[in-house]
């Protein structure tokens, strides 16, 4: 049994954990849910010795224990698998697993005995991992199992998993849940940190809900449902399904014919793709990440050199092929990028300065002295409008974008891109890392824009999101369109198969 008793942890003036109590029973799967910044990762990092609590105590099997470092945690049988894997790509599975706990004498590394041990563990939990395979040859799902093995190899009895399904395909999630259940059968205790309610309901025995650094609910999974969990997480009623009227489809805005895109190494990332997006509809693209969606969107936004593309991209009858990103924006194409930190924001710039990116060079923003000088009043007005209409918090245009939470950063970007009244909106992963409350808001905004006659191309790794928002759904596999389905009737299984097998 693992018990966190009256744990408090402060970072500067943020109270990350406020006198929290969490009890995890041995041999159960325990979910810890909450929005970003609710303090769930902090709590678990305290249990794993990454942080030390300001006050409170940790009990393992009823005994108060001092866990000052991950080393102490491992010694007590606590293991943790992080959201971002910590594996050395070029080394083999066995080498990665023993890293930091190398068997043998100081000079000679005894990989053979380790290999045997890993094989045995792998069989016991049916992980199907070959110890001699280099990590770079493994799929993401397999890499995750290596991370599990790493913990098991160090005799972990309590496994803490931080957002383990974020990187997995629907099929891999199923397999992963099978592994977790098998671990529970073998007497292991599993703690899973997540914000996906469907998974909580599918896998866990008990749930602890956190909000604003406090524990706000402790429930048996069989006694609860998604609506109740969402309400506990957000603190108010949340609309989980997107309500949208039927699409009023107009003319084709974007027509793509036989588009292929290669990456810098010359490998084809998008392969002979043709489709169109009409005004007033949302066309969704579902697919496992890394199957060419990123390259497709960047090619449409003008962020890929023309030499790397073949085929035709027509927007309102004009061929976009050699047009710069700036000209495409002027034509009425807006873009909400998948990676807001890398693409979407100037993190060190103020919200005001961020609110003009893309229109900074033309009136009304650049209006003084022949359009050379920026009009500070116009910038402030624009920022204030976006902040107000899109509920960006805290509402202070002078703050650097870095200071905002992920959801508010995303609202800022969406507001900025809406402000240009786009005819075509390219959206990638609009709600990644965004809280449930903000997700609801963002979804409603997308539907409203569609109803105003904008053509929207939506890429998302969240199957539920892309199926509930889209009017038509294309499934991407290996750079090709593996199929088109009607999102109203298609089942998740059907889509999942197209995503992973391509037919």
């Amino acid at each position, binding site marked *: 049994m693992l018990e966190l008793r009256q744990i408090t942890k*402060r970072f*500067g*003036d943020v109270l990350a954990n406020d006198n929290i109590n969490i009890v995890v029973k041995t041999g159960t799967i325990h979910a810890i849910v909450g929005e970003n910044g609710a303090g769930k990762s902090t709590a678990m990092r305290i249990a794993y010795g990454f942080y030390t609590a300001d006050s409170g105590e940790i009990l393992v099997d009823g005994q108060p224990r001092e866990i000052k470092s991950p080393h102490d945690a491992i010694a007590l049988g606590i293991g943790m698998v992080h959201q971002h894997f910590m594996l050395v790509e070029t080394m083999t599975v066995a080498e990665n697993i023993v890293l930091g706990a190398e068997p043998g004498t100081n000079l000679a590394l005894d990989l053979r005995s380790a290999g045997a041990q890993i094989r045995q563990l792998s069989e016991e939990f049916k992980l199907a991992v070959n110890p001699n395979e280099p990590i770079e040859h493994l799929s993401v799902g397999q890499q995750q199992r290596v991370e599990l093995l790493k913990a098991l190899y160090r005799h972990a009895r309590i496994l803490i998993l931080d957002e383990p399904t974020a990187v997995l395909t629907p099929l891999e999630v199923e397999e992963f849940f099978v592994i977790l259940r098998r671990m529970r059968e073998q007497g292991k205790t599993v703690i899973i940190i997540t914000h996906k309610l469907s998974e909580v309901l599918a896998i866990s025995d008990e749930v602890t809900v956190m909000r604003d650094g406090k524990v706000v609910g402790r429930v048996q999974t069989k006694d609860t449902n998604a609506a109740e969990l969402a309400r506990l997480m957000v603190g108010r009623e949340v609309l989980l399904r997107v309500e949208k009227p039927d699409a009023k489809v107009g003319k084709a805005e974007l027509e793509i014919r036989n588009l292929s895109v290669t990456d810098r190494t010359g490998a084809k990332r998008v392969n002979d793709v043709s489709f169109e997006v009409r005004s007033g509809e949302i066309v969704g693209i579902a697919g496992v990440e890394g199957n060419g969606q990123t390259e497709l969107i960047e090619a449409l*936004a003008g*962020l890929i050199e023309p030499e790397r593309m073949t085929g035709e991209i027509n927007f309102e009858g004009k061929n976009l092929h050699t047009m*710069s*990103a*700036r000209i*495409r*924006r002027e034509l009425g194409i807006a*873009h909400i*990028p998948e990676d807001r930190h*890398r*693409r*979407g*924001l*100037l*993190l*060190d*710039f103020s919200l005001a*300065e961020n609110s*003009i*990116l*893309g229109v*900074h*060079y033309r009136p009304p*923003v*650049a209006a003084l002295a022949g*359009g*050379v*000088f*920026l009009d*500070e009043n116009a910038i402030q007005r624009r920022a204030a409008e976006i902040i107000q209409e899109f509920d960006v918090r805290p509402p202070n245009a*002078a*703050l650097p974008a870095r200071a905002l939470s992920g959801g508010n950063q995303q609202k800022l970007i969406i507001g900025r891109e809406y402000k240009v009244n786009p005819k075509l909106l390219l959206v990638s992963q609009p709600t990644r890392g965004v809280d449930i409350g903000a997700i609801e808001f963002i979804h409603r905004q997308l539907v409203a824009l569609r109803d105003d006659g904008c053509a929207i191309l939506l890429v998302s790794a969240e199957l539920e999101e892309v199926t509930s928002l889209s009017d038509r759904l294309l499934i991407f596999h290996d750079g090709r369109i593996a199929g088109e389905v009607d999102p109203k009737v298609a089942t998740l299984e059907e889509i999942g198969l197209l995503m992973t097998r391509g037919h």
Partner: protein
Amino acid sequence: MNLCNLWITNPEMTKLARELLFPLIAVVAAFIVGGILILLVGDSPIVAYRLLLGSALSWPDGIGYTLFHATPLIFTGLAVLVGFRCGLFNIGAEGQLYIAAFATAWVGITFANLSPWLLIPFCFLAAILSGAFWAAIPGVLKARFGSHEVINTIMLNFIAVALVSYFVQYHYKVPGDPIMQTSFIGEGAHIARLGKFVPGFPERIPLNVAFLLALLCCLLVYLFLWRTKWGYEIRATGSNPSAAEYGGISIGKQIVLAMAVSGALASMVGINEVLGYRYRYYDGFSDNYGFTGIAVALLGRNHPAGVILAALLFAALQHGGIYVDGFSEHVTKDIVQVLQGIIILFVAGEAFFKWLVGRRFSMQRLRA
């Protein structure tokens, strides 16, 4: 405590405090370490520092020469700053200012008989265009081929120095003159020394109009970077090139533009030197201005106002160093180099101070 609360709660104040505090700590810490070194060689730090700083504050010579020495440092500090703001490290200000100084001297000699109304603008144009051109070369190389500007600007420094020396030695030196210098420029190209306008300020001190231009350039650089669309694009590129590209900004253009502006600012050192001080090109005149400019920009936190303060400090040290050399027993003017070095070391170690001070701040906040 009240003061502390004010500083913590007001974001503008904390920002200003942060901007001022760390350079200040760096300078004070450098003087403390320097003082220990002076003690170790057997002199009194108080006496040495009084010589060093006292001499820089005397009227009119101390102040005059300090401002004169500060002039090139403001220009090179601004040059490095503009590069930094675009994410570029221009180590080539030294080469750029040599090329520009020679170009302006060449115009001043070749067209010596023109009226000042034409000659001075020509001389300015020659300096600015040649400096901007020399700096744009590594800019273009980076934009087109991705070759690193640090390597290319360093290489171009050597080429610039050698090229200019060649011209002086074989083409523009007065025959029989043992010194590596050109003949004089036409009188029409001279820009006025401040002694001409400032009552009680002797004209023998070479402080000239270029100093006022340096202050003007600080204002212009500020307006350019923070008030124009071009400045926005340069800063966006420096802050996050991927996001800038996404916002429809051409990264390559910004790199070339920023380098050219940087080179143009460095070239103003040539104006100060040739048109305002020696009235000829004197080979090897630069006292590492281009490199000290890096330190000035760093200490000045890449802000024009900071550059003025940092340039004044370094100029005062440079001027005071001569007095330390002359009047103290053991300490030589090398102490100036030592102090500058330590200041840069501490500025670079800012992360450490931030951690230290940040901890103090948060602890006070907890108690409050």
